[in-house]
């Protein structure tokens, strides 16, 4: 399918899967086989240890998104697929650890950024700090941009996780 850049939108897809070995491989194979790029991916067990929840972020147009959703549903180990889009109110959070160089001249600026972004210092040494920042993808990106001039030694970022607000719940329906 031809991709028109103007139709390409970021989508967060929530996938409930059987918590078995190989499921992640099935999902990544599916994306790879169709040439879809995964922007981010987060996987974790749910309150029911037999079920894992994946949050997959992709950039695609609606056609491709529809195929992706259907293909995901077709996988035997996938229990439910839901997409978060602009029509659904949802909360998304990601986390990031950033190790920033510390010296006399940038110390204040780093501290200020930590303050402004309501992030946390989780490790400190002579020459660096590790800052933990959580929030939406945009917020994390903004933080990274802001501290970039201070000197980032290394960073590690999670995929985002997302839940619908209020009554919007993605659950395994109980049988037929």
């Amino acid at each position, binding site marked *: 399918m031809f991709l028109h850049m103007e139709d390409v939108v970021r989508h967060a897809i929530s996938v409930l899967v059987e918590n078995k070995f190989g499921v992640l491989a099935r999902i990544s194979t599916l994306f790879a086989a169709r040439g879809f790029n995964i922007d981010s991916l987060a996987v974790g067990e749910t309150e029911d240890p037999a079920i894992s929840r994946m949050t997959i972020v992709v950039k695609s147009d609606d056609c491709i998104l529809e*195929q992706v959703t*259907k293909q995901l*549903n077709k996988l035997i180990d996938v229990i439910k697929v839901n997409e978060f889009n602009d029509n659904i109110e949802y909360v998304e959070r990601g986390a990031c650890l950033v190790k920033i160089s510390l010296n006399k001249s940038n110390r204040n600026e780093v501290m200020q950024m930590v303050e402004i972004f309501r992030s946390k210092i989780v490790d400190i040494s002579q020459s660096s700090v590790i800052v933990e920042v959580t929030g939406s993808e945009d917020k994390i990106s903004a933080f990274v941009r802001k501290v970039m001039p201070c000197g980032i030694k290394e960073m590690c970022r999670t995929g985002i996780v997302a839940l619908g607000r209020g009554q919007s719940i993605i659950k395994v329906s109980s049988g037929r």
Partner: protein
Amino acid sequence: MVRRTGSQILVESLLREDVEVVFGLPGGQALPIFDAVHGSELNFVLVRHEQAASHMADGYARSTGKPGVFIVTSGPGATNVVTGLCNAYMDSVPLVGISGQVATDVIGQDAFQEADIIGITRPVTKHNFLVKNVNDLARTLKEAFYIATTGRPGPVLVDVPIDVQRAFCEFVYPDKVDIRSYRPNYSGHSVQIKKAAEIINKSEKPVFYIGAGVVASNAESEIFEISKKADIPVTNTLLAIGAYPLDTSLSLGMLGMHGTFCANKVVQTADVIVAVGARFDDRCTGKVCEFAKKAKKIHIDIDPTAISKVVDADVPVVGDAKTVLKEMIALIDSKDRKDWLRMIDTWKTEHPLWYNRDDDKLHPQYVVEKISELTKGDAIVVTEVGQHQMWAAQYYKAKNSRLFLSSGGLGTMGFGYPAGIGAKFGNPDKEVVVVAGDGSFQMNMQEMAVAVLNDINVKVVILNNQCLGNVRQWQEMFYGKRYSHICLAKRKKCPKWCNTPRRDTCPVYIPDFLKWAQSYGALGMRVTEKKDVEPALKKMLGTKNSVVLDIWTEIEENVFPMVPAGASLDNIVTRMNG
């Protein structure tokens, strides 16, 4: 409680699933399984190459509608069935494959004959399982059969490590399966069905486009009923040959690249296309944006991913073809569409399937026509892949579905002969004729041992043009007749590049298929003249053993009609230079 080994459980489970025949080949990591097969009721057929086992299971499944089963060992045994799995996956054929695997404690250590077959086959199976605990084995096998045969059918591979084969546990075979994440939807949405019926009722020029899904769900009679009720012509895909009777005016034959002129014209003119169990494959649609531009598309399919994958459906109906059509019949108005049918009749008469019937040359089409005539379209014709496949599709008038078996989606050379053997195992009373090319046949002809040793009376008709004919046709038409590595007679002494293959000047063809057949104790015959075709076919059909009939056809015969790859169906060419 009786405790059994994993291997015994496996064999017992296959018997519980009423598996009539299992194809395969033993090996180190499958020894316990084969020990359990020894002395069991299981009807096991030893093949000569694992790929053939997968195609035999496939041919068995296509011809009977029941799942085909094979057992192979780990490593190379398992990698050899990958083509067969992919072939079955592309054509939605229910298979259950079992592979041996190295012991669970050495998986990942590059043990002898270890291959990550689960990883390798993930994209070419409907699902696959690695059984790590013997307690899960019976349930897994039950699930494998369930997944393979329900919804959109497909192949399932179960990988069983050798320690699991040896481990003991209590055997309980489950009666039912419930997989919470897999519940195929059989009944279509009523609102959608109603919408579809309304569109059909309002249409002037509707057409049914039916595929393998119609055969899989046994919806042939429903299609027939609706088409008769409302004068709706029917075109079929390669895999749905025989699903609609050819002897009615509503039948258009196959559409697409080598389909009939009429079928393609109808599709391009229609105002409504009702696709049933078909997936808008590129060999059917030609250039997608030019495909059936005037038509509203109704798409009935059990697989939601098939819908709007290639062509946008105006009215999608997700459900089983038979169930949906049954509900739809009552909503369809009886209607005469005389003008539409008259138009179609003109196209049929003006552009019938054509080859030169008047000269003395041995045209391959003639051979297929004679096979059709002599078997009355009641034999199971299995094809390899290539030109002969298309001629068989065009000229074999299969009376029913499951009488024409061919590798569609994957186009697997080497499929036909083993698939024919598999079909014969499933239909011992049916005549099975494999229409092969001399190129394709050589890819799995070693399986003649299986046919002969098991008294499997399969007839092979080789339409021998001493080259890879389909590739040659494309090189002739689209690559300036620069014949590149298509000649199967070429020897060292030949000029490096040759585009003048001729029986009288080319080197002697090998193998001599006649001697080849004889070396297996089968009957080999050769025909080089048109007049000898019919007597030879009669003799072949009258023989109760394996026969190889090597027919030397016109070398540079082309398949027509043809829609060039990537062109619109409107650009159908019915003859060379025409």
